[in-house]
């Protein structure tokens, strides 16, 4: 349940950033000094021609479906995608801090969300019993 809610939050954040990318507008930015824009328009914001935000949206959607669809592999898939997403988001956070040198609050929010998601989905796999 918590995992599903977190995945929905992730969908909202990544969905907003995907929309911002395709609409050619600036994200709402608390930092105010164009930090969000600097991150969103950096060369790292696009991965093989696909906006990273869209990849995040797809990952969150996959996790959400995997947590609500009653399939025996659901929990495993959710945990694998969440963990991979968490690792990739560690790399993206490192880029923000040390390469782009600008922080986007939306990316931070997504990083926190995916961290919690990775924790909850992996714990679900660990705690599940076969009986």
């Amino acid at each position, binding site marked *: 349940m918590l995992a599903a809610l977190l995945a929905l939050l992730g969908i909202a954040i990544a969905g907003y950033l995907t929309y911002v990318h395709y609409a*050619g*507008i*600036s994200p709402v930015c608390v930092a105010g*000094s*164009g930090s969000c*824009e*600097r991150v969103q*328009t*950096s*060369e*790292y914001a*696009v*991965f*093989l*021609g696909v*906006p990273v935000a869209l990849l995040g949206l797809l990952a969150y959607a996959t996790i959400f479906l995997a947590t609500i669809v009653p399939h025996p592999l659901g929990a*495993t898939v959710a*945990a*694998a*995608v*969440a*963990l*991979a*997403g*968490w*690792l*990739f988001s560690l*790399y993206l956070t490192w880029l923000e801090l040390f390469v782009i040198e600008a922080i986007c609050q939306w990316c931070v929010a997504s990083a926190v969300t995916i961290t919690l998601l990775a924790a909850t989905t*992996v714990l679900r*796999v*660990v705690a*599940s*019993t*076969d*009986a």
Partner: protein
Amino acid sequence: MCGGCQPPIPFMTYGRDVTGKRTRLLAVVAAAVAVAAVAIVASIVTSSSTDKSGELRGASEVRSLMRGIPQRGYTLGRSDAPATLIEFVDLQCPYCAQLARDGLPAIIANEVRSGRLRLELRILSFLGPDSQTAARFAAGAARQNRVWQFTELFFRNQGRENSGYVTEDFLRKVAGAIDGLDVDRALAFSRTPESEDDLERANSEARKLGVTATPTLFLVQGGGRPRQLALSDLTAEAVRSAISAARQP
């Protein structure tokens, strides 16, 4: 009959349960690490190279930055945009490169893409022979409405100033990553006297407006005279505040 003995089977099943769970967890972690590693490596490699030729920086960034924005000659953006930003650059100038990397992408993605601003490039070549070779090729790219992709890519791949690095091979490598640019045609044009006319036009406009350094930007609004921007930095925020300041009567 041994009342206290338990048949061995449940114990063995319990052992298999733990092993099964551990295997599943390991599989999850291994799959996640593998996928993430591939993605991270791909991101690093593609952020500094192109799929068309090796070792070219920024190709996919420039491609997606410019996609769908109208371009005519040296102008980027819609022709009915209410304001124009004229940018004087030298292709070898490192500060122009910094502006291209740090300042312009946000402006292009935002104000230019939404039709509020259009950009006009004026390419000077005072830094040396490599600047001239590059500028003449840029003239060829402008004839095919691709000069902005060319200059943005050039800025992200500058070599050592006046080391003679702007060779035909170098130009082919940079221009080869631009969709819709006929490199042979642009090269041929760059060797004609007509390409030098573009340089002369840019130089004389620079003299008229008192441009002595690059990058220098001017704001033109509603047919008014060009107003030079006072840039405090080479970031999008600095360009935007300079534009606001230049708008004051």
